[in-house]
């Protein structure tokens, strides 16, 4: 009861504050301020712009070779560990995959556990999750820790005690609705997506009121205008109004109801424009023949008003997807010069292998170039229409059902998956963890059953012809749309990158190495093999006057599924020995947080 009173009180304060001024609410002010403090890491991406940049600079290109692990923490969970810890004041919050344990660790007391929260979830949700039971981390806001559970419950915990403050169901696992993505607190709301593109869900973004978990707005990715929160006249795509029924008119009958467009990636926020940015995933099923039309607004970048959810602009990158190129990867907001002109830009490295630079105010498309030279399914993006020029040979729709379309690059896991890239305001470059994998893809007819996989394609994956490495870590110029440097990696790089003011970028590898590279040249300066493969994101913080680097290891996710036993060859090139490198020979399961510092 006491708790409720407290919440009520702070809500009253909130209302009073918003009445006094038109400024954003207290929660947002507090969080915005905290995100600018380089000592803390208060949201999964470090800041609202998704830059994953730390202004800390004790660790430099000159001394990073002295880096060493200073403490470690076992999470007690074996599955794939994505996301990373939050650092709020003197407390570190560490999450795990299913069963979604949250730990609060006392940084003043050698990481002693202040509290532990473990939700009770029906384990029948486990197999409903596509590709491992990953979770990409918790959010902080207004004294609360927000957790997206696997079973689609959103829970708010008291950050001090770990006590449950409220809990709401954001979906139904019996219909294939689960959660893997991280929530994001914006002003007095928490934004929550949904997973289940392989189960025919109707994807959506929901804003819950932070005070009590009530729904503020809900915006679907596919469906009628009132469900997708589009204004036919005001919502634009490449500068033109989308018109009425912009989604419905691109689906046959009511296929949109099981049309996918899941929202399991990352959400960015621009406080000045008051817009949130995120992408939607694949249309369901993976068999394109079964769903004629552009299938809007799957595979789309959304810019929505943070208060109302109404879409300001949208851009569909892969109309009528034929390869499972989800559009959910992070949107990085950066004020850069594009071909000489300063732009409030949004930069997005899509699964489809193109990196898009857009004007985030207007939704204008400025640059769209391949960030892996292997990409072959489209020759280029038409800058007028925004549509990719699809190569017929690689069109699984053109080749049809029960036909094996061979040698499509990238594979379904994309030139990059959810593992977020980082931006450095000092170099002006983007640092991108990538996959270097191609596929054969054969679509076939499937029937929809609620809660059952709705995939409709089978595929085999292998490295591009004549190559044996499966990943690259690259530096990208978003103005010219060119790779500046590229480091080969044995396996896909499935770990989120970090840039620092010390001139060092960090990322993890599937074998389990934490690597530090010179941001200017890509030269490897340091590596350390953690207990398991890294699919988590690298974080930096300062405590007691010292800079730390933290990362979760714990192999798994789609990377663990696709590569544990090594990739198969394509039907012709079965001799490609390199493709048989088995991840299982390099690393095994186990969730561990490793924290590094200089001596």
């Amino acid at each position: 009861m006491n708790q409720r009173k407290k919440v009520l009180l702070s809500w009253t304060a909130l209302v009073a504050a918003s009445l006094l001024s038109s400024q954003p609410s207290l929660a947002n002010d507090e969080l915005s301020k905290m995100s600018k403090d380089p000592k803390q890491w208060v949201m999964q991406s470090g800041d609202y712009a998704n830059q994953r940049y730390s202004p800390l600079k004790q660790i430099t290109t000159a001394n990073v070779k002295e880096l060493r692990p200073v403490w470690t923490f076992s999470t007690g969970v074996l599955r794939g560990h994505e996301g990373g810890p939050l650092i709020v004041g003197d407390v570190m919050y560490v999450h795990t995959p299913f069963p979604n344990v949250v730990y609060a660790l006392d940084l003043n007391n050698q990481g002693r556990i202040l509290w532990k929260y473990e939700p009770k979830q029906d384990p029948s949700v486990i197999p409903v999750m596509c590709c491992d039971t990953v979770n990409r981390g918790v959010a902080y806001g207004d004294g609360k820790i927000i957790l997206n559970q696997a079973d689609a419950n959103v829970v708010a915990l008291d950050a001090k005690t770990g006590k449950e403050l409220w809990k709401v169901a954001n979906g139904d696992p019996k219909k294939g609705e689960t959660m893997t993505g991280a929530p994001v607190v914006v002003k007095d709301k928490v934004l929550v997506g949904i997973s289940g593109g392989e189960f025919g869900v109707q994807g959506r973004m929901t804003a819950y009121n932070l005070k009590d978990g009530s729904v503020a707005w809900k915006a679907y990715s596919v469906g009628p205008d009132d469900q997708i929160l589009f204004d036919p006249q005001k919502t634009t795509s490449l500068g033109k109004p989308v018109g009425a029924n912009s989604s419905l008119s691109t689906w046959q009958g009511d296929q949109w109801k099981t049309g996918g467009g899941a929202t399991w990636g990352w959400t960015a926020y621009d406080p000045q424009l008051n817009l949130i940015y995120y992408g939607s995933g694949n249309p369901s099923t993976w068999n394109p023949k079964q769903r004629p039309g552009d299938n809007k607004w799957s595979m789309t970048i959304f810019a929505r008003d943070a208060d109302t959810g109404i879409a300001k602009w949208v851009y569909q990158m892969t109309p009528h997807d034929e390869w499972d190129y989800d559009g959910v990867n992070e949107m990085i907001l950066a004020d850069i010069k594009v071909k000489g002109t300063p732009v409030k830009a949004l930069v997005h490295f899509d699964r489809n292998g193109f990196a898009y630079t857009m004007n985030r105010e207007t939704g204008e498309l400025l640059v769209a170039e391949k960030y892996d030279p292997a990409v072959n399914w489209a020759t280029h993006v038409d800058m007028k229409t925004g549509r990719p020029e699809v190569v017929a040979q690689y069109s699984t729709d053109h080749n049809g059902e029960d036909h094996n379309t061979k040698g499509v690059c990238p594979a379904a896991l994309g030139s990059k998956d959810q593992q977020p890239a980082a931006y450095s305001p000092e170099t002006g470059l983007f640092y991108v963890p990538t996959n270097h994998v191609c596929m054969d893809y054969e679509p076939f007819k499937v029937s929809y059953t609620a809660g059952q996989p709705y995939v409709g394609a089978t595929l085999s994956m292998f490295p591009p012809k004549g190559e044996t490495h499966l990943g690259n870590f690259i530096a990208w110029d978003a103005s010219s749309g060119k790779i500046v440097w590229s480091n080969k990696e044995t396996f896909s790089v499935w770990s989120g990158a970090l840039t620092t003011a010390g001139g060092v970028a960090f990322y993890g590898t599937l074998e389990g190495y934490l690597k530090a590279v010179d941001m200017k040249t890509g030269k490897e300066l340091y590596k350390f093999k953690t207990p398991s493969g890294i699919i988590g994101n690298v974080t930096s913080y300062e405590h007691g006057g010292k800079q730390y680097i933290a990362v979760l290891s714990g192999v798994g996710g789609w990377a663990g599924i696709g590569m544990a036993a090594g990739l198969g060859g394509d039907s012709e090139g079965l001799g490609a020995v390199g493709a048989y490198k088995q991840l299982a020979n390099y690393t095994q399961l186990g969730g561990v947080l490793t924290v590094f510092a200089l001596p």
Partner: protein
Amino acid sequence: MPKRLALTAAITLMALPLCVAAGAAGAADGSAPTAAKAAEAKPYKVEGGKVDPGTYNGYRRYGESCMRCHGPDGAGSSYAPDLTDSLKHMDYDAFAETVINGRKNVNTANNNVMPSFGTTEDVANYLDDIYGYLKARSDGALGRGRPQRIGD
């Protein structure tokens, strides 16, 4: 301890009606050999690296419903067991029982759950094809990657 007992009871209860359902599904398809027949003859045909239509269909159905967890080519993943190994120790009946009823192994160390596919048409109707494909992989008769069909 009481919890574990309760769980076992629940699985047993669940298993009974589903077994019946699966039997019906197999019969409806018309192509399902009986378990005894499957045991005496190889459930697949591989000639010069090429496979019969059933085994090929098994490969495809595997890709639809199993690969997301068990990895490409039945070879296992960080998430679920290597089926080319499992089928060395598991006969057709045990395979069918597991696919139809699912399996739970949830305790302090593990969070492994295989769902029940007894009512999933894409699996239950093609159980024998999937078994044939995986058995060919397990026996070493079929390599990795997409098999070619006899006559292709």
